[in-house]
Structure formats: C-alpha cells, structure tokens
C-alpha cells in the first residue's frame, strides 16, 4: 500500500508506523482511488508528502507571485467574491424585472444571458417563435439592451455579456451608454464568451465564424477595448465548456491555459505589449463536485499562470501575472432524479470555488436539469452564496486549506498533470493548431467516454441515478415557466416595425463598411460592429454580414 516514506520528515515516525499497521489490518479490501483527473488519492497525507519548510517559495503569500494562496493580499476578506448570477429570459422588459429582483436579493453584478437564437446569430423574425426567450433574453438592437438594463448605472455595476464573436451585445451596450451620457472609460464588465477556441472544441451554443475570422475578430475586440473601454475585460478564456463536454478538471485547465497562451501570442504578434492586455485577461471555469480536486486545480493554475506570463510571455507588471477567474457550478453534475439533491451539490461546488480563490461566482439553480431555471430555484442559488459568506463565514480566512498536507500535495500533482497535457498541446503546435486538427476534441471525447463507463459500472456513484434511487412523485417537480406567447409576439412585431422606420441608407452603409473591414486586415472589425449598432443595424444583420465575408464555421462531428 504505502510506499516507504522518509521517516526523517515525519514528526512521529513510530506513531505513523503504528497507524499503517492498524489501517492495513482493519481496512479490508483497500480500493485504489483516483480523482477525475486520474491522480491517485491516498488515505492519509503527512509532512512526508509536503513539507512547508521546503516549499515556502512555492506556497508564497496572498497577493504575491506565485499567487498560490490568492491573487490579492486581502482576497474575500477585503472584498467578497462578486455574486454574478447568470440570468436571461423572455423580452428585455421581463429580463429587467427579474434583474432588479436579483440585485435586491444580494447579487452584486450582472451577467446577461441572451436567447439561443442570438447565440446562433439570428434575429427574432428569423427564428421559430416557440424557441424565443425560453432560456435567454431576446436582444437584437441597442434599444433592447437599453431596456434590459434600465435602472442600471453602467459606471457602477459590472455587466458581463455572454455572447460570442462578434460581441454585438457589448456594441449595443456601448451605444446605450453613449446615449445615456456615460463615458465608455467608466463602463466595466467582461466579454464572458470571447473564447472562440473553446466554442470550436465544445459546440454548445456558439458557432458562427470560421476559425481564422474568429481569431481576427478577437484580436480586434481586445485592441478596441484596450483603447476605448479600458475597464472592460475583453478576453475571458473559457474552461467551462470543455469540462462540461467531458474533459477532466486537469485537462480543462490545461486546454484553457493553452488557449490563453495562444491568444496572448496572437496579441503580441499584432504588436501589443503583454502588460497592455494581460491584466484584462480573465478566466471562466466549471466547478465540479469533486471538492478537493477543484480547490487544488485553481491553486495550481495560479502558480502555472505566473510562470507563463512572467517567464514565457515576458510580462513585467505583476498585475499581468494575476490569474483572475469566474467560476460557475457545474450543471453536468446535477440530476433530474431527486432534483432537490442538487442544492447540496451546488453548495459543495460553490465552496470548492470559494476556497479555490475565485473572484466571481455563479451558482446553478437546483432545477437546472429539469428545464431553464425557475425564479424559485434562482432565489435558492443566491441564498446559498449568502449562507456560505455570512453564516459559514467563508470570507474570514484567506486560503484556509493552505498548508493542508493533502491539499498542497494535490496542488502539486494537479500542477504536474496540467503541465503534462499542456505539453501535448504545445507539441501539436499550440492550441489553435491542436483544435483545428481535432486533437483536443478527441481527447475530450475519450475522457467523456471513460467517465461514462465509470458511472455505468457503478464505480462512480450518482445519487438517485445509479444508486439510492426512489420512486418519485412527479408533482414535486416545479412548474415550468415559459415566455408568454402574446408578449413575445408583441416583441417580434415591435421589432419589425422598428426595422421598417430606420434609415435604409444608413443601415446599408454601415453594413457595407463592416463588410469592407472584414476584407481589410488593417481595419478593426469590432469598431465597425459598434458603428453598425449605432446606425441601427440588428444583431442578425451584423452576424450574417460577417458570416458571409469571413466564412461560416463548420462543425466537426467526432463520435
């Protein structure tokens, strides 16, 4: 079982030997245990696994390289994590009403989730009406954005936008801000889904431009925001999709860091200085229910990112080395069976993210696996964060798991596994080439299959699904709320009327300028997107113009 350990490192070598004997005698069959990333897990960790005296510099202190214990000196004790709940539904007016409730209940920032039709680049009058607004808000113009964010001061409240390239939602927001007299330099938030490579790998919603076009547009977007919207984070490198698609936590982190390196290199190639754009790189991760693994994953990531930014990319400003991330509890772990159990799962996931040192958190509603979340479920999700902060006092101590033999050793091992996968990507020519070749997709598919086999065989228990099943009363499930058809029809009719009264010349001129920019490498396509939004172009018009000019991204189907 245990390999021979260096007894000099143990404080109580005789006691340890005694424990080993007693353990072996009483354990019966000792199963080999490994976490989701494949790291073997022992029953007990000691100073022989991780010795504080030897590893002080790797551990460090909060707010200083290598940031293992946290990117800020004060962390959550100084400023609690941002409670950024992802919401979206129905019409802009319905969204605004829900938004105000959520802010009143304690959310401190906004994350706007648009309708799936928006993700796909279509306007509402091109889409099946049954599908409009069921899981996100239908926003096709700057006026819709203005209505959705009525009563929100852009200068004070951070607004994350969840659309992928070409980031029309930010464009609409900037137009609305200008109309309200808010200086763009005060607008803060994140382009949450700007990672085109992760969208290419794990299909999910977003898939509109061919790879080369998406790459170019991201560069233009970062450039534009650096110059004109300096408090905006244009780059959110996304690990969530890949982990949801089946990548192990270590793989998801490795692929995400590799994407960040790719994007950073692309920016450097455009002539940008790393210290200009790295401070505004943020990350977005899935948090699974594998508690310690997630904590270790995030701590390891901070260390790796420090080395990458400082040593490989040549960033000199310590703000460039900071690994800032938003975490979302993983819907992939939630079940339809006995859905209230999901509240327990989300709590554990949230704790892992908080103790892992995230900057902002979204907690899923328990009914995520049944339908788009209800108001009732959303309220519990927010309350969960409030309980963890104010009743469990998780903000009182910075990196409370630091120094734990297990957590530190696991951090080391996750670091090694992450770097191993990063090397595979590096050897394949970097993330862009690895994704283009389908390598990353295949690796994720393999991991997904392996996990499925473990669930199948019962090795991985899923409560209520392959163990502890009960006959359930269907009436216990919450009622589904769908957008009211009449309200949505009115929204569509209003949209058509609005389009009819625009200046056709102005609209066409803006779309032509956009099309020309797509073919001119010296122009900034995102700047033209903003201008088109200002001229009254709709989301669908902007997207279809770029789809035509830059090519449509076809999906690889690898089974």
């Amino acid at each position, binding site marked *: 079982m245990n390999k021979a350990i260096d007894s000099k490192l143990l404080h109580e070598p005789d006691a340890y030997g005694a424990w080993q004997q007693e353990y072996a005698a009483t354990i019966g069959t000792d199963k080999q245990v490994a976490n989701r990333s494949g790291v073997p897990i022992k029953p007990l960790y000691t100073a022989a696994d991780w010795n504080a005296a030897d590893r002080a510099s790797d551990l460090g202190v909060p707010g200083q390289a290598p940031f293992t214990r946290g990117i800020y000196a004060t962390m959550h004790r100084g400023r609690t994590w941002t409670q950024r709940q992802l919401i979206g539904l129905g019409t802009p007016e319905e969204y605004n009403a829900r938004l105000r409730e959520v802010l009143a209940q304690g959310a401190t920032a906004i994350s706007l989730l648009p309708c799936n039709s928006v993700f796909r680049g279509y306007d509402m009058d091109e889409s099946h009406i049954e599908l409009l607004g069921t899981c996100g808000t239908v926003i096709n113009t700057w006026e819709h954005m203005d209505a959705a964010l009525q009563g929100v001061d852009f200068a004070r409240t951070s607004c994350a936008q969840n659309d992928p390239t070409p980031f029309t939602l930010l464009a609409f927001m900037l137009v609305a801000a200008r109309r309200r007299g808010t200086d763009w330099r005060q607008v803060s938030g994140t382009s949450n889904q700007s990672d085109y490579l992760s969208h290419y790998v794990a*299909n999910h919603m977003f898939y509109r431009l061919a790879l080369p076009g998406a790459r170019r547009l991201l560069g233009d977007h970062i450039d534009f925001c650096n110059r004109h919207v300096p408090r905006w984070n244009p780059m959110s490198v996304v690990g969530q999709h890949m982990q949801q698609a089946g990548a192990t936590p270590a793989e998801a982190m490795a692929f995400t860091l590799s994407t960040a390196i790719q994007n950073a290199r692309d920016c450097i190639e455009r002539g940008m200085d790393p210290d200009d754009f790295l401070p505004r790189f943020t990350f977005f991760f899935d948090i699974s229910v594998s508690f310690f693994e997630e904590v270790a994953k995030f701590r390891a990531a901070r260390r790796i990112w420090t080395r990458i930014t400082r040593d490989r990319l040549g960033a000199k400003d310590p703000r460039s080395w900071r690994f800032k991330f938003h975490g979302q509890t993983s819907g992939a772990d939630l079940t339809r069976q006995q859905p209230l159990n999901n509240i327990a799962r989300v709590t554990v996931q949230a704790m892992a993210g908080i103790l892992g040192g995230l900057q902002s958190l979204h907690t899923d509603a328990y009914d995520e696996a049944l339908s788009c979340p209800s108001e009732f479920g959303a309220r519990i999700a927010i309350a969960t964060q409030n309980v963890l902060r104010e009743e469990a006092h998780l903000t009182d101590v910075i990196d409370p798991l630091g120094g734990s033999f297990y957590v530190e050793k696991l951090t080391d091992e996750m670091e090694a596994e992450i770097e191993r996968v990063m090397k595979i990507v590096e050897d394949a020519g970097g993330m862009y080439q690895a994704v283009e070749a389908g390598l990353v997709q295949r690796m994720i598919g393999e991991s*997904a299959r392996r996990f*499925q086999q473990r669930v199948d065989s019962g090795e991985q228990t899923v409560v209520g699904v392959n163990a502890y099943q009960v006959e359930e009363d269907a009436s216990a499930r919450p009622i589904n709320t769908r957008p009211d058809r009449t309200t949505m029809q009115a929204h569509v009719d209003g949209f058509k009327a609005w389009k009819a009264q625009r200046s056709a010349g102005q609209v066409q001129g803006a779309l032509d300028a956009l099309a020309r920019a797509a073919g001119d490498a010296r122009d900034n396509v995102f700047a033209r997107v903003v201008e088109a939004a200002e001229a009254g172009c709709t989301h669908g018009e902007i997207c279809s113009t770029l789809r035509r000019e830059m090519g449509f991204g076809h999906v690889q189907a690898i089974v």
Partner: protein
Amino acid sequence: MSEPHTMSAARPPEGAKAPSGGSDPHAVGERGGHMIPKVLVTKIGFDGHDRGSRVVAAGLRDAGMEVIYTPPWQEIAAVVKLAMEEDVDVVGISSLATDHLIVPKLMAELREAGLGDIGVVVGGIVPDEDEKALLDAGVARVFHPGSAMADIASFVRELAGQVRARRVAL
C-alpha cells in the same frame, strides 16, 4: 445553460455474436431476420450541447445499428431530406434546452413528405407537461437524463422493426 448528467454508455450484450453482415460471408445483407436498424441521431433548433447525443450514437452503433450522426443546429427541412435519402427507420432527436418544442413541426413535415411511418424518439430534458404533448403528437417515446443505454437501444431496435414491418405490408 449547462448540460446535466447524461446516459450510460453502451456495451455489446453478453454473448453477442456478430450479426449477419459482419464477418459471416454466408449471410450477406439482412436475410434471415437479422435486421440492421438505420437510425438518425440529430439536434434541431438552437442548442448545441451534444455530449449526450454523441454517447447515444456510439451506443446504438455498439448495439449493432447503423447510425447517421449529424452535428447540432440542423434545419427541419434538411432533416426531412436526410431521412428520405437515407431511408432511416428511426429519427432520434436530442434536446437539452427547449428545442423539443419544435419536434411537432418536424413530424408534420415528415408526414407531408410521405415519411410519416418513420419512428421518432426524443431524448434529453423534457418537462412532464411537454412530454405528454410530444407523445400525443406521435413521438414514440421520450428518454430522460439517466436513461440506460441498453433500454434506449432495445426500444429503438423494436421500433425500427415495427417501422420496417409496416413498410413491407404496403
């Protein structure tokens, strides 16, 4: 939206022999009752989460069926054209968000194209009240997350058999 826990992967049944059309040169094709179901696994509407549909496609293959697997975001007209050209027995729609709401539209277009005899199953997140509506519209079965792959495979095989029998009887 995030993707919930999906279904189990397939394993060939214990003691399964290669069906005809495998390595048996004496039983070429589907004579002697060794029907090989032809199944389309696809997604319509807007959602792109396809982890579940990939697992099911692989599972049906492992159960000895021929599967046409498409990426998400298929237009309904394209699905109908595909179903006709490939002469599929069963269409399996994977739906995570609310895309199942347009399955009745798909079924209407299949009927209009003379393909109303094709079996349709839906898998994914479908609230109970919607499930009833789908079954009333002619969907043969709705599979929820956590469904066992073996159940899906055996139902699809049986459904395909019924579809074929109806066609021969024409």
